[in-house]
Every structure is written in C-alpha cells, then in structure tokens.
C-alpha cells in the first residue's frame, strides 16, 4: 500500500528513502549503486525497497464509512 516505516527484520527506518530511490532508478541509474549510496548494507533492508509495490495512488480515492 504505502511504504512501511521500518524494516520488518532489523528495525532500521527506511520510510524516508523510498521516493529518492524511485526517482533515481526511473532516471536510469543502477539500483545496486543507489542502495549503497542510501546506506543500506543488510539484505533485509534492501529487499524492503527493491520489492515494494505502491498502491496508495489508486486506493486513496475510496473512502471508509
């Protein structure tokens, strides 16, 4: 839905890094280099950014009554 605030396994804060990652990868950079630049060295944190699907843009028009 929307990016989780912390990594599920180790608890490092990753919520602020997703939009920077998406912008740089769409411009054409290599994802491995972007992840290293953002400071994520364990693979539990890297999979949180690499395999996230953002659905909030389609869902936010529906309301909960």
């Amino acid at each position, binding site marked *: *839905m*929307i*990016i989780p*605030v*912390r990594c599920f396994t*180790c*608890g*490092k*804060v990753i*919520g*602020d890094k*997703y*939009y920077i990652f998406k912008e740089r990868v769409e411009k054409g950079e290599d994802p491995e280099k972007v992840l290293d630049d953002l400071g994520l060295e364990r693979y539990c944190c890297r999979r949180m950014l690499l395999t996230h699907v953002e659905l*909030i*843009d389609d*869902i*936010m*028009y*529906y*309301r*909960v009554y």
Partner: protein
Amino acid sequence: MKIEILEKRDNALRFILEGVDVTFANSLRRTIVGDVPTFAIDEVEFYENDSALFDEIIAHRLAMIPLTTPVDRFELDALDLDEYIVTLSLEAEGPGMVYSGDLKSDDPDIKPANPNIPIIKLAEGQRLVFNAYAKLGRGKDHAKWQPGFAYYKYLTKLYVSKETPKWNTLKKIAKRRKLPIEENENELIITTLKSFYLPREFDQYMGTLIREEIIPNTFVFTVESNGELPVEEIVSIALKILMRKSDKFISELHKLGE
C-alpha cells in the same frame, strides 16, 4: 580491560572490548536492546479521518516513528520509569502527502527524529485530525521502544600457509574488505574485524593448511541507533542499568535476612 574504538559514523559505532567473557557480552547486548528506555507514541485519539486507511493502521504507523529523548531531563537508568506524557497533534487537509515533520508537539525537546517519513497520502477534500500521547517505555515490552540494535562477534585470526594454491586471491579479497593483514615468509595472517567467509574452493584445506584461532575474551561490538539517543549514551545507560540491578538484588537479600 581495554576498549578501542574502531570507527564511528553519525549513528553507528564499532569497538573492540577486551577482558570480559561471553556471558557478560550477551547480557550487555540484551540490555542495550531491551532495557534502555525511550519515548514513543502510545495512544491516539481521532477526531476526523476521511482517508483511505483505517484508524488502527495510521496509529500503528505513528507509533513506529522515532522520537528524540533528552538525556539530562529524565533519569533513564532508574528501575521505575517516569510517568510523563507528551501530546503531539496534527490537522491536515486536501491533496498532498502528510510527513512526520508536520506533527506539532507541546514539548520542544521531544519531537520526531526524522522529519521526512511519509505518514499517508490524502486526496482532494479528505481531512485528518488527531491527538497522540507519547510515553517512556522499554524495548522488551514492544519493539517501538527499542533505541537501536547491537551485535557482537569473536575476534579471530586466520592463518593461511603459503603452500595453498592461489593464496593471492585471499589476499586480494581481504584487502578489498579492508581487513588488516600481516605477512611473513611462510604464512599470511588475517585479523577478522568483519566476518570473512572463505570461497568454496578453499574448503578442502580447512584444518590442514588454513586454520582459524580465536583470541580469548575479545569481542567486536557494533551498536547502531535510530536517532533517538546518541550512541555513546546508549552504552553508558546500559552499563548503569546493570549496576542498579545488582545493587537492588543485594538490598533485597538483606531484607530477607531480617
């Protein structure tokens, strides 16, 4: 008893601790993760919520945001915690993304440590109004109160005899990972400050030409924090908590004897 600091980045610290046994190192690691108290949001009161996510989901996301904890205003190494409540509030509307920097707190020392965390995205005409209450707590009750995490490993030396074929590849790998190397005419000695895994082709020589020896009572600790407390304070508070626990135990024993 010696401590040597290897490297320090803004929120992470790595040091070598010499002169303790493995039980004390494990107790120190468990105290850092589970017993050092910090602030986190505990209860949320919603007045209006038109967004696409349920109340509980937004409350869970708010609880996971790290809040800064002032070290000198509270006694963080006491065994009973202060009952001090901080109120954080938010009122937002309309198209756009709500970030953690928009939360307003009534105590200027206790606020979100990172202002760029997205909380929720609102469409045109949707409103979100709530009050959140933050308290002190320990990591062993809920993971939102953890101040960071810590791990340790033994310090070992790897002796590679020069009769092993292709021993130069091991030297190149160690140099790329920045481990200290010593060399004399028969052997190559690598000190493993970070974990060093042998490539599979060298497995057959393990035990005969390549051996690994543990330096006794020496550990390499790494402590990382999320921004709530500075890293050096976390270790000092953990050691003071251990001192207070053993002190309380002795006074309980004396009370029994009467």
